[in-house]
């Protein structure tokens, strides 16, 4: 038994992951680092140590994301520029949101979010059109629209963050704190997850399906804003004033996003599965591929949902004095989690594939939806954000 000799290894040596980074990558890293340091200095008075930690943690994450999935850079740059522009246009005066044309119609948070809504719906239509006429060009347009919608949505959130502080120093909070805001987050994250797989598999045929669930979220968003005035920025109740918000909520919504993506792919799967040689089958990815995406989306969702639930428990321990109170929201998180755990076991240990799991993934989305809106609508509990 012998081990390969070094000189041979040298011959086949491949650059390590870090070595493979090019100048641009380092520039990106530097840019993010610099801006987070700036943010730290600029807003030090508004952050406790945990939040400063979160700031740099996020920066690190963003750098890594930008290295592993390049388009993230352009996206972040656009969002950063638009947000900075908005901030400078506001110049510390909320009223400018009404007077300044560019703010009023483009990038005041509410307008940005309206743009996001419109663009996502357009993207869905375009994707479906592209699928029907089998036009690669329109599919690309669909992606472009999705990207821009995402940019607008995130800009909207950033600007809303700033606006909340313009309303009052003591009012300001990170806009992931009520049902209205998390629906924006949900749309954006689901779209991003889809875009990732779109690029990974070099195939845009599922866009219409995934953007359908996003558009549904958008529809709710609009109803919620216009019928309930939910877009009004309201100050936070004491229980929600915590750095945990910044960790718990976004993590949670990566989870939800994953589950939503999986469900929509599952839907496509079932449609093809009904007529394996039908018209849709010709236009959608292979069953194997969809099954694979479905699994990966649920895996991702499950992983993040697990972390989110743990973070939630830790927050609960700090806010309510118990890491687990069987409060309806908590309990439904557990239900969702157990449900997908069962799903994963069936697939992995019992070797289930395809149709039954696809159905299950769709049902799973409804369970998830209940955990995320239903609980606030129908059940009473400690979770004091956004009731309908």
């Amino acid at each position: 038994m012998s081990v390969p000799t070094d000189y041979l290894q040298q011959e086949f040596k491949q650059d390590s992951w870090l070595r493979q980074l090019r100048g641009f990558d380092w520039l990106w890293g530097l840019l993010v680092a610099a801006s987070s340091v700036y943010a730290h200095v600029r807003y030090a008075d508004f952050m406790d140590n945990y939040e400063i930690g979160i700031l740099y943690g996020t920066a690190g994450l963003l750098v890594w994301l930008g290295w592993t999935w390049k388009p993230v850079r352009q996206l972040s740059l656009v969002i950063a520029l638009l947000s900075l522009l908005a901030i400078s246009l506001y110049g510390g005066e909320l009223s400018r949101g009404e007077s300044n044309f560019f703010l009023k119609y483009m990038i005041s948070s509410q307008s940005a979010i309206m743009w996001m809504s419109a663009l996502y719906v357009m993207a869905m239509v375009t994707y479906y059109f592209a699928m029907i006429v089998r036009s690669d060009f329109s599919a690309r347009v669909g992606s472009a629209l999705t990207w821009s919608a995402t940019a607008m949505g995130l800009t909207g959130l950033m600007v809303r963050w700033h606006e909340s502080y313009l309303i009052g120093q003591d009012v300001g909070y990170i806009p992931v704190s009520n049902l209205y805001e998390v629906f924006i987050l949900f749309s954006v994250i689901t779209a991003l997850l889809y875009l990732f797989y779109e690029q990974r598999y070099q195939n845009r045929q599922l866009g219409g399906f995934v953007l359908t669930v996003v558009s549904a979220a958008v529809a709710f968003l609009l109803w919620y804003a216009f019928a309930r005035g939910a877009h009004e920025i309201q100050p936070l109740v004491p229980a929600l004033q915590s750095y945990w918000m910044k960790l718990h909520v976004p993590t949670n919504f990566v989870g939800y996003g994953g589950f939503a993506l999986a469900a929509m792919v599952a839907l496509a799967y079932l449609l093809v599965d009904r007529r394996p040689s039908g018209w849709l089958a010709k236009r959608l990815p292979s069953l194997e591929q969809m099954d694979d995406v479905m699994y990966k989306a649920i895996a991702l969702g499950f992983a993040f949902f697990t972390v989110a639930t743990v973070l939630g428990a830790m927050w609960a321990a700090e806010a309510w004095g118990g890491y687990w109170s069987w409060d309806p929201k908590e309990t439904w998180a557990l239900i969702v989690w157990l449900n997908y755990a069962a799903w994963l076991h069936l697939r992995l240990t019992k070797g289930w594939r395809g149709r039954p799991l696809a159905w299950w993934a769709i049902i799973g989305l409804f369970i998830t939806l209940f955990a995320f809106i239903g609980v606030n609508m129908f059940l009473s509990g400690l979770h004091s954000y956004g009731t309908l």
Partner: protein
Amino acid sequence: MLKNTASTACPRRSVGSVLLEFFGSMNLAITLLIVIAIASVIGTVLQQNEPYTNYVRKFGPFWFEVFKSLGLFDVYSSGWFLLLLGFLLFSTSVCIWRNTPHMLRDMRNFRLDVKEKSLRNFHLQAAWESGHDAETAAARSAAMLASRGYRVRQARQGEHCTVAAMKGSAGRLGYIFLHVAIVVICLGGLIDGNLPLKLKELRGELRAETRDIRASEVPLESTLGVDNPSFRGSVSIPEGGSSKVVFLQLRDGYLMQQLPFSIELEEFRLEYYSTGMPKSYESDLIIHDDGLEQPLRQTIRVNHPLEYKGYAIYQSSFGDGGSRLSMRAWSLDLPQQEPVELQSGVNRSLRLTTTRGERTLEFTDFKLHNIFPVPEDEGSGKKFRNYGPSFIFRMRDPAGEALEYVNYMAPVEVEDRMFFMSGMRSSPAEDYRYLYIPVDAAGSPQRFMQLLAAAHDDVRVRATIKQQLADMVDDDEASRDVQEKMIGSISRLLDLFVDEGIAGIVKHAEENVPEEQRQGAIDSYINVLQGVLGVLYVEVLRDEGIMVADGISEADNRFYDDALNALSILGAYGSPVFLQLNSFEHIEASGLQITRSPGKDIVYLGCAMLMIGVFMVFYVHQRRLWVYVMPHEGGASLLFAGSGLRRREDFEQEFRTLQGELQQAVPPV
């Protein structure tokens, strides 16, 4: 998957191994996951741990008993639910017990002894001949794979040599972490759960106290000593007060938990946003403990608890801690006003003997701020207005009937006049109906009360009426007793008016006047009353020392109208007195939650393992590669094969790239 994991159970079929088989079976595991998920729903749709009376009202006595016996009012600590969790716990443990050993072995085992035949059956494989001799071919393949981050072993068996490579074995650790984590978390939770209490209760050593009594009176069988390792209770401490105990809610009752130290509340602070929403509440606590040389002072806020000796103290709620109130009681019935000073406080009560008999005043709450949205029509730019301090009390008559009142301390501005505002309702379900008492120049209800008293003063009233009539009747027997009659009926009308308001007058008319003349009659009644009250009002003004000879000022006129409005609804106010709040001492109470959970660290350890484990399981997966090299016509023939545990598609891609690279390292001829 299970093929090379669970099913490698020992062949001997003893009872034990059958049980293991059962508990370790994936089907049981999955069933449990689903059953528990479904069972958990119950407690979210059915409000848990409410007072039993509520349930009885909701479901009726029969279903109440049924649900109670099923433990549905406290599902998550009911026997059957805990049993389910226990099963999952056991099943997971068995699963770990059976899978861990071979998984660990599997991580180290390179499978150098594979047979060519089995490799040829692999889904992923490629074969080619190369010019290199077997020795070199093997060495070069090994080196290539090693440079791609694979752990590599080589062996030569006679003719051929085998290169076995492996990557991502840590994924198996992920499985172990993940599942051990679940066990650890459950155990930690068990330590903090109220299972011990349940057992004590079953053994009859504990009884939940249901009466509302003072801490000192709580019997021993409902008291838990400081040795109780874990609990979660709450207590409300008024400012300046302190507590050595907390109360644990147990179904429809509570238990009293003693603390090894006492908690004093020095001050409680509540801050509001401009919208009247609470912005923050915080308590200045002082911990008194023999262990400390000087008391420990600490301020806690929501999300910022105090940890002391393994006890965690949280800010959870707030309320009134018995604010002191000093009030002035104005009689609404007596013919002359001498207001009475009263002293009491929130959560205390007061007996009054009034013109209408015994009344008990139960003071239920005091609010320092009352911030309400300003109605749109009001032109002021402000969105919200603070109506200042108010207090709430119930007025109970001997029959036990109670009316609820909310009185505001400061006069309220309505249409640029000031009023004392007092709301009344006969049940919490209703909205308050408000009485607006006009405020006089001195900023007191004095003037209104004087007028009211005058209206109750029969002698004075009769005199006034007489005067009014004087010029109408001439002085003879007949007209004199006509006059007497008129005086009598008018003063009765007046009484009716102040006792029952306009409604009284209308009723009177309906009883005594035929339909067609009724409206006319009512109008003339009102006229007369206005006349009389007007005169009385002028006298009240004169008593105040206001010059009325040359007309009455605009303001005083408006006051009169407001006074009449107030009088006309006084009947419905239902109270013999009006309580005016003179001064108060605001005493707040802070609701603290106090917990002791030694299992917490264990749970967090488990959580850490869970998070690491879940990502490892998903993103680190074990792949195995083999290069089977045989001498072949001077060169060598290579068989390259691979197997991945998961993510076939991804692994297939990797395999094909590696194959390409391998074929460069060991080129085909």
